[in-house]
């Protein structure tokens, strides 16, 4: 994830947000402008999408080569400017030239290095990243799932979804959102993004100097999806750290204190080992967490190999996947025509969009319309 961050207006605390209205909007027809309704559905197979994509990639590869060439010559010019500058400064000092002249030479060399680094090294990488996402990732996603759209840069709606999930209660002071995918996968409308949310603390040392420390609340993939069953309460499925660490005694720590939520103990031992469930209603929690859903959630956790957490509210399902993997990021030095390159990004897309299939959200045999 790039380290470009956007500060919340008014330090985050006074951010106006009505999560319920937003979620109600998402659940009602017509969907918000974000959730595009199209005719066809479901994901295509990789094999089906590959031939067309491979043709498109050739054009992009020539652009990559040009930018890579610019960057390589930029690096060469930086080296030359560095060498010339250093040689000039050393020679000037050796010949006893006035310090003003030597200093001017040094500063000129540094400015030249800075300009070259910006225009010939940093900019090509940025341009390539933009081109790569709009001309490679976007068509790739459309070819896998026609009804979804992709926005490489932030998408504020995701912050509303994040808050509506109630999975994280810390006040957000800084956040970054990128790679938003939204639309319909099969029968399920879904939104997902790479997100990084942080809160800050300040400390003052003995000299009175104040330092700000940034702490991550969540970093990874955040998903909001329409759940296929209607429900009214709230159910939280969190990683079971207490039971994993302290065994049976850990269960005592799981009991919610000063909360309207109840601890829900389920029958599936694998699921109970991985997760702890707290819900506003015991029956509703079991209605949501059917035996097959529990198995699917355990499998999903294994697939991402991290502490995946879920919440079920407002008839939607929210999934927080704190993965360190940064999805859809290009490398200017990588040949796009190299074997397996296309497949690698396709797998990333399918891994994320496949969550609806993994959790069986496309099975619409219940009363929910």
């Amino acid at each position: 994830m790039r380290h470009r961050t956007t500060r919340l207006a008014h330090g985050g605390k006074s951010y106006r947000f009505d999560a319920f209205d937003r979620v109600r909007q998402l659940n009602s027809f017509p969907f918000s402008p974000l959730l595009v309704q199209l005719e066809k559905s479901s994901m295509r197979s990789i094999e089906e999408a590959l031939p067309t994509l491979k043709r498109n990639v050739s054009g992009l590869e020539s652009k990559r080569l040009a930018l890579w060439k610019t960057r390589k010559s930029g690096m060469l010019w930086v080296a030359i400017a560095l060498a010339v500058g250093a040689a000039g400064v050393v020679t000037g000092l050796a010949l006893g030239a006035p310090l003003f002249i030597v200093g001017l030479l040094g500063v000129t060399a540094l400015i030249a290095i800075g300009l070259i680094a910006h225009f010939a090294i940093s900019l090509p990488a940025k341009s390539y990243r933009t081109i790569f996402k709009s001309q490679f990732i976007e068509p790739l996603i459309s070819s896998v799932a026609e009804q979804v759209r992709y926005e490489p840069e932030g998408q504020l709606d995701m912050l509303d979804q994040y808050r509506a999930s109630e999975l994280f209660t810390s006040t957000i002071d800084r956040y970054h959102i990128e790679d938003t995918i939204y639309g319909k996968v099969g029968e399920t409308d879904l939104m997902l993004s790479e997100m990084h949310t942080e809160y800050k603390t300040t400390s003052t040392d003995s000299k009175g100097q104040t330092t700000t420390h940034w702490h991550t609340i969540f970093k990874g993939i955040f998903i909001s999806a329409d759940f296929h069953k209607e429900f009214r309460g709230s159910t939280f499925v969190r990683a079971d750290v207490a039971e994993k660490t302290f065994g049976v005694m850990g269960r005592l720590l799981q009991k919610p204190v000063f909360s309207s939520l109840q601890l829900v103990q389920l029958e599936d031992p694998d699921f109970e080992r991985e997760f702890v469930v707290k819900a506003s209603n015991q029956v509703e929690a079991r209605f949501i967490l059917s035996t097959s859903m529990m198995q699917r959630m355990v499998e999903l956790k294994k697939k991402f190999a991290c502490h995946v957490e879920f919440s079920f509210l407002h008839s939607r399902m929210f999934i927080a996947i704190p993965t360190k993997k940064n999805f859809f990021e290009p490398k200017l030095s990588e040949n796009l025509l190299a074997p397996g390159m296309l497949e690698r990004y396709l797998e990333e897309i399918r891994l994320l969009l496949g969550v609806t299939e993994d959790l069986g959200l496309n099975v619409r045999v219940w009363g929910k319309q």
Partner: protein
Amino acid sequence: MYVVIGFLIFVFFAMLFIYNSLVSYRNMADSAASTIEVMLKKRWDLIPNLVAATKGYMEHESTVLAKIASMRSTALSMPLQSSERIESEQQLSSALSPFRIAVESYPDLKASDSFMKLQGALNECEEQISAARRAFNAAVLQYNNSVEMFPHSVIATWFDFKRKAFFEIADSDREVPSVK
């Protein structure tokens, strides 16, 4: 002397705590049982609509279902875990089976919006019954564990807290067939 008084006060409060927790577990189980009752009633209520929606298409199945539906008031008046009640609920479950797979065999039904809605409602109802049954059994397990484990077992014997039976009915946790 003070030690003895202190000990007796401790024992009194411990007994009070155990007694209250047993009552709480029993109430949880009773509350879960009443949820099953509500869900089963909801399922019975859907039957007349289902019979009406499928009459023209599934003569035989509808007749069987209508016959079972006539037992509704008798069935619902019986205690939840009586063998007669369980038997009638199971009869209803088996009579409903053909309707779950009807869409494939009767394409006309597939086009019927009211049938599709009913089928959705029925599936949801079955899933809720299953959830309520699982909640009841979880509550009963917690209650039974308390009744049988020391020191709760002592208080349970004094105040006549008896083990509760788990709720067994036709398994509705099976995979629900796709209607596509």
